[in-house]
């Protein structure tokens, strides 16, 4: 059948070709040509017979820095490795294991740390092949130097680690912002992080003042102090160094040599004095594109950007922008909060107006009356100077008293920036009770106070803390409007509780429904005809701003208890 013949013909052809190939190979082998593979291989090849080197190639001599083939063959295998391999095993032990594997499987490939004759170590990839010879097993050892590959791997992992560290650093700075760490600390950390990414580079962040005309210090932990101080407060403009110009133009300004660049004409002396030569500045923008400040990279030698810095600049300006915007929003909020607190204070003082007038008029009444008496005495023929002096002394002391009352009230009414200081809650409570004494009398309320002695101090703003207490006490008095006059009692206590200092104001008013207790703290919630409904909301935000809590609960004996707690400082104040 022609089909079968046609199929058989190519197979026969192939077999013939194969035979020819084998004959040619046998010829090559017999002539020893392949021995050159051994001799000229760039990999080191050694033959090991029963633990002794019997042959090696030139590459082996070269790789191990041996004087010659003879020297190499005179060595024992243990001379070619350090005592311990990088994985911690003894080289001698590991060699035995590797050989065992090779004998079992026929060959075995693994990485090894080898040692040159001069003692230097280098990584190799080893291929062990077992060769049967006269009923023995000869081992063919092929070493390939993998120093370069290892080096490249190390470089790669190093740059990956650096990248990871840089990202982690960015995360840490963002976390600081979220935690409300001060802006100068945040920016200093950011600058230090960026500087760590490139050798010889010094960085700074500057802010643009609120009026948009002046430079304000931001962070420059590694720039010379004299330079930082000179720049702080300097105006921005079209020719005002790198940063002042970058903020003015709203675009990056690259100055490769500060001593020759016209933008630095007015500041070159400062640059020289500070040992700075190159300054590349990039503006920092808000999300809406308004300039907030600038980020700058400085070098001590003239230098132009290589392009690799652009990513660092991008990260720095982005994070600095977030930090500065966050700070400004925070300040804005603080300002609004303190304005609101002030309004609430003034409103409360308005409610107290009658009592305040009473308290001030008390000494004024005596002053005016005594002065009148003195005047009429002085018109008499014989003046009893001793009498006059006594009356004048009384006038003076009442004058002081009136002024103290007024300054006490003034401190509550005037605007001020809240400031934390260590305070004794019992003292503050006493002051507030004195302030509302007349008001309580007018409303026929008796105030009982149980104030803890030697309580630890709390960190808060005096005026704001007085305001909170004043608010709670006034609310308590108001709450008993419909209570029988002989039951109108307000109890004010201060004490320690679970490491906090606590103040509690209990009234005997109508009380609060537990379900509605939280509603009381919502802004504009009011039960009073003339109230703003801000008192409790503001009081709570004040207490929370000092790390404390403010809450309301029902009084077991009828009425309500309003309490707040503030963290106790470790040492008490005297």
């Amino acid at each position, binding site marked *: 059948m022609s089909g079968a013949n046609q199929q058989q013909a190519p197979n026969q052809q192939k077999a013939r070709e194969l035979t020819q190939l084998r004959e040619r190979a046998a010829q090559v082998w017999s002539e020893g040509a392949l021995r050159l593979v051994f001799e000229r291989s760039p990999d080191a090849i050694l033959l090991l017979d029963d633990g002794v080197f019997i042959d090696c190639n030139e590459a082996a001599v070269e790789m191990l820095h041996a004087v010659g083939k003879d020297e190499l063959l005179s060595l024992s295998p243990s001379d070619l490795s350090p005592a311990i391999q990088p994985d911690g095993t003894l080289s001698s032990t590991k060699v035995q294991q590797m050989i065992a594997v090779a004998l079992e499987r026929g060959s075995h490939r693994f990485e090894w740390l080898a040692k040159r004759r001069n003692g230097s170590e280098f990584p190799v990839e080893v291929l062990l092949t077992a060769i049967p010879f006269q009923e023995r097993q000869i081992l063919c050892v092929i070493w390939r130097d993998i120093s370069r590959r290892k080096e490249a791997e190390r470089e790669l992992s190093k740059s990956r680690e650096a990248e990871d560290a840089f990202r982690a650093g960015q995360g840490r700075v963002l976390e600081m912002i979220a935690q409300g760490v001060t802006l100068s600390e945040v920016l200093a950390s950011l600058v230090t992080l960026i500087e760590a990414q490139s050798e010889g580079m010094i960085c700074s962040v500057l802010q643009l003042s609120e009026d948009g005309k002046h430079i304000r210090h931001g962070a420059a932990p590694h720039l010379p102090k004299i330079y930082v101080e000179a720049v702080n407060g300097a105006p921005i403009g079209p020719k005002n160094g790198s940063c002042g110009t970058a903020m003015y133009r709203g675009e990056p300004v690259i100055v490769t040599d500060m001593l020759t660049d016209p933008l630095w004409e007015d500041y070159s002396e400062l640059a020289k004095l500070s040992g700075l030569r190159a300054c590349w500045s990039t503006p920092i923008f808000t999300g809406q594109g308004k300039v907030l400040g600038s980020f700058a990279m400085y070098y001590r030698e003239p230098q132009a950007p290589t392009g690799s810095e652009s990513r660092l600049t991008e990260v720095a300006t982005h994070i600095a922008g977030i930090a500065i915007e966050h700070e400004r929003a925070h300040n804005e909020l603080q300002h609004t909060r303190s304005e609101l607190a002030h309004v609430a204070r003034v409103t409360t003082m308005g409610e107290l107006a*009658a*009592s305040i*007038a*009473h*308290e*001030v*008029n*008390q*000494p*004024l*009444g*005596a*002053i*005016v*009356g*005594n002065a*009148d*008496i003195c005047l*009429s*005495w002085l018109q008499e023929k014989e003046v009893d100077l001793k009498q006059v002096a006594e*009356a004048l002394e*009384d006038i003076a*002391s*009442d004058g002081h*008293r009136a002024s103290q009352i007024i300054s006490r009230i003034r401190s509550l009414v005037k605007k001020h920036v809240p400031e934390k200081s260590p305070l004794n809650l019992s003292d503050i409570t006493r002051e507030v009770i004195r302030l509302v*004494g*007349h008001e309580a*009398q*007018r409303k*026929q309320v008796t105030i009982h106070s149980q104030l803890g002695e030697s309580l630890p101090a709390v960190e808060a703003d005096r005026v704001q803390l007085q305001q909170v207490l004043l608010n709670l006490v006034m609310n308590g008095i108001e709450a008993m409007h419909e209570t029988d006059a002989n039951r109108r009692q307000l109890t004010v206590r201060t004490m320690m509780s679970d490491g906090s200092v606590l103040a509690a104001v209990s009234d005997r008013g109508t009380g609060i429904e537990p379900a509605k207790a939280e509603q009381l703290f919502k802004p504009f919630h009011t039960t009073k005809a003339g109230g703003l409904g801000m008192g409790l909301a503001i009081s709570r935000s004040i207490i929370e701003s000092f790390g404390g809590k403010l809450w309301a609960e029902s009084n077991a004996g009828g009425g309500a208890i309003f309490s707040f707690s503030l963290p106790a400082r470790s040492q008490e104040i005297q």
Partner: protein
Amino acid sequence: MTEKPPVVIVVDDDDSFRNFLSRLVSTIGLKTVPFDSAEAFLAAPPPDCPACLVLDVQMPGLSGLDLQRVLTRASRPLPIIFTTGHGDIPMTVEAMKAGAVGFFSKPFRNQDMIDAIKEGIARDRETRKQLDELAEIQARYDSLTSREREVFAHVTEGALNKQIAHQLGTSERTIKAHRAQVVQKMKADSVADLVRMADRLKISPQKGAKSAP
């Protein structure tokens, strides 16, 4: 017997204000009796001389207005002059309605206070005179027998002897004798005088009858 010198009682919780009032009162040659609270004043014996009270409206404990309410119920209501650091209209109205001599907001003119004190003392002097007279009439009344008191009551009601005799179940002559006795003991000039005395004593026939032993 000459009258005892008048005093000004000052009730105020403010030390310096009390001192000032003492000084002011001394310029018109009077003495003050100071108290720092309404309670302290109530605990002390009442003055047995013409007096007036200078009272602070707002004090811890009993307020000035509270004290006024207590005093108006007394047999000899002392004239009160109020002082206050800050007075409002309802407070002033309440005080004045209850018979206060004056109501002063601090600071005030010394002369106004002196005038008020003088008026207060004059009022108290008058009250004391009235009370003395009443005590005298009461003493005379107390000297009447129970029958005479009955007759006294009926006479001041305007009843005729005949009517009284009928009422008390006795003769007109007997009544006539009692009546002469009453007029003499009460030192009355006329029936009209007797009526005035009865009025002061708040005597009526029923009361007369009831008070009979």
